């Protein structure tokens, strides 16, 4: 079936075939090339030099990489637990989904940076396809859907987290896919709704923020689609009960983890209450006021123009910091799109408004704020409203000049982002990505046989994990180490300067400011040419 679809510009009539969201028909039209172009752009942006940009794996990535390797080789984590539901790691008890996905990619690509980041890039790519499909389902507007996909494919926010091992990116895909399948199931009164709920469960096992987002969002969906849910219940009562029981059983390990001491450690350590100055002598009403004030400040910070359009997240790993999480040219379209959404209150507008309002809640309950990783769920509704505003503008200003001007802005700002990401960012973000740690671990591995002992400064944070990942340590052996962060085999980790009081030759990885008695072997520098470590023979 071929529809003649008039684009907003009279000069570019576009023939688009009817695109079903289940499969794309390969007709002689522009829909397939457009989608292919978007997927190709997504693929290139996310997979190009994935192992080298960002330059180095940071501590959590290395931990994910080695835990995944340990699962792949032995079926156990580095503490010897068989196929765990949470990974103790650095006593932060990571959720399992990303690690298990990494074990598959390490099986395919080996134990390296590319394999550790591959699942994030893959799910980032799948997110774009799913987002286009969801927009087609909700809006039936091909132009808006394709634009939404294109903006997500070139989004600085989403691209940044698709190019490193961030669980939040993977959980975003599961939330998006789950939402699509639930809405599709409600529309068609089909059992595919159960699959949507399964994806929601997967998101809970992937990252922490869905545990706040999913309940609120599901509540909104129940309220908004009350009749459709009731109709579904009428049709599939038995199946709903059976699947419901299965899903509750599937969630039991999650609840066990969430309320265990390990699970609560993470929540307590990141809670926003640590920034609220309350003592035992603070009156109750004052405590409530201070905590409430802080929570609201945290929540509204996610809508800060500085965060969204100018500076981004102040954490060097979460943004390039020279531009915002969104492109500046998108600001008027975003504001106009939200305004139109509030005014017209279409079904998709209400859905994405609620999505946008619920998404920052998880991040607001933690610290610091705004946090681009915890707020990643916001990127989809924001890009929906940008697309919405853009389409309205295109319809209003039907001119070639306007279209060309917008194209220029799009290309210019995207080029600026890529320039900053590949040229400036590696030089300025070395410490954030532990740049130099891999080179140090490689040097140790190459020369350690010449020494009876290797002493490493505690400034080399999580050094033992870098040694495991870049070295040749058998996971079966690693699982036997009791406190590898203090010492194991011939490795010793010290907080203060180390002095060799024995006759044995020691390889010493020292801080830059130290000058021990011995022979200087190597200076390790990062991409910004700053000294990371000095290596000595003492």
């Amino acid at each position, binding site marked *: 079936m071929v529809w003649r679809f008039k684009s907003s510009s009279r000069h570019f009539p576009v023939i688009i075939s009817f695109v079903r969201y289940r499969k794309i028909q390969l007709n002689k039209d522009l829909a397939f090339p457009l989608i292919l172009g978007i997927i190709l752009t997504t693929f290139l942006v996310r997979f190009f030099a994935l192992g080298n940009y960002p330059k180095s794996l940071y501590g959590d990535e290395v931990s994910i990489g080695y835990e995944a390797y340990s699962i792949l080789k032995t079926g156990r984590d580095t503490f010897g637990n068989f196929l765990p539901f949470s990974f103790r790691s650095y006593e932060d008890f990571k959720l399992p989904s990303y690690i298990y996905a990494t074990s598959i990619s390490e099986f395919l690509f080996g134990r390296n940076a590319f394999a550790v980041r591959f699942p994030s890039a893959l799910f980032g790519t799948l997110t774009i396809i799913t987002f286009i499909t969801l927009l087609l389902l909700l809006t039936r507007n091909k132009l808006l859907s394709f634009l939404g996909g294109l903006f997500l494919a070139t989004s600085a926010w989403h691209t940044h987290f698709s190019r490193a091992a961030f669980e939040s990116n993977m959980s975003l895909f599961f939330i998006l896919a789950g939402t699509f399948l639930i809405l599709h199931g409600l529309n068609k009164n089909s059992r595919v709704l159960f699959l949507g709920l399964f994806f929601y469960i997967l998101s809970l096992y992937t990252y922490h923020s869905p545990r706040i987002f999913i309940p609120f969002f599901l509540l909104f969906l129940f309220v908004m689609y009350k009749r459709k849910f009731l109709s579904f219940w009428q049709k599939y009562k038995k199946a709903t009960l059976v699947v419901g029981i299965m899903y509750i059983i599937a969630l039991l390990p999650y609840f066990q983890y969430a309320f265990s001491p390990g699970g609560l450690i993470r929540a307590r350590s990141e809670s926003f209450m640590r920034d609220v100055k309350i003592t035992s002598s603070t009156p109750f009403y004052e405590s409530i006021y201070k905590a409430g004030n802080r929570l609201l400040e945290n929540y509204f910070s996610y809508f800060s123009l*500085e965060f969204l359009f100018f500076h981004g997240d102040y954490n060097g790993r979460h943004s390039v910091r020279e531009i915002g999480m969104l492109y500046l040219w998108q600001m008027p379209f975003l504001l106009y799109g939200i305004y139109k959404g*509030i005014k017209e209150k279409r079904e998709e507008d209400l859905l994405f408004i609620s999505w946008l309002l619920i998404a920052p809640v998880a991040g607001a309950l933690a610290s610091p704020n705004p946090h681009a990783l915890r707020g990643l769920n916001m990127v989809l509704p924001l890009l929906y409203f940008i697309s919405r505003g853009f389409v309205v503008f295109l319809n209003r200003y039907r001119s070639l000049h306007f279209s060309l001007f917008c194209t220029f802005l799009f290309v210019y700002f995207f080029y600026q982002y890529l320039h900053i990401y590949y040229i400036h960012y590696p030089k300025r973000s070395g410490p954030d990505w532990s740049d130099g740690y891999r080179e140090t671990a490689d040097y140790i591995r190459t020369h350690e046989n010449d020494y009876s002992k290797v002493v490493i400064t505690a400034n080399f944070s999580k050094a033992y994990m870098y040694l495991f990942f870049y070295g040749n340590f058998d996971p079966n052996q690693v699982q036997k180490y009791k406190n590898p962060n203090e010492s194991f085999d011939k490795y010793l980790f010290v907080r203060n300067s180390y002095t060799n009081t024995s006759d044995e030759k020691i390889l010493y990885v020292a801080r830059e400011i130290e000058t021990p008695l011995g022979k200087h072997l190597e200076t390790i520098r990062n991409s910004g040419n700053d000294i990371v470590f000095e290596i000595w023979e003492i």
Partner: protein
Amino acid sequence: MGDLGFCTIVDIANTTYTSLLSDIPADFGMPFFFIRLLHNKLSIFSWSTLKCFFQYFDIEQITQFLPPVLIPYIAYFLIRIPKKKVIYSLLGSVYIFFILDPFHWNLGTKIIIYQVLYFGLSILGGILFTLRLNKRKLVHG
């Protein structure tokens, strides 16, 4: 940018200068055209100006000086007010005045004007919200 976020034309000029100084060497080895395409006075000055201007509308800036609980009322007023162009132009003009800083007001004066402005908007937003709520109750019973 600026003292406590109250940036002026002087801050914009300083930011332009320091950005050019740090960004151009960072691109060492690249073709000159590509360096200057992104790192030129026009683009950085435009960027800094817009950043300074929108800083006055920034929620984080507002919550520095007002309780965050007033934000929804301010937002409601700015969305629902009938003569939007007038209000937005007025707000924009005040902030352009802050940026140009012709009378070199001290920081305290600027903070007071800023607080009064947004506090006023929140009160108007609250009144507007209450009136519309009462109107709905009358209509729907």
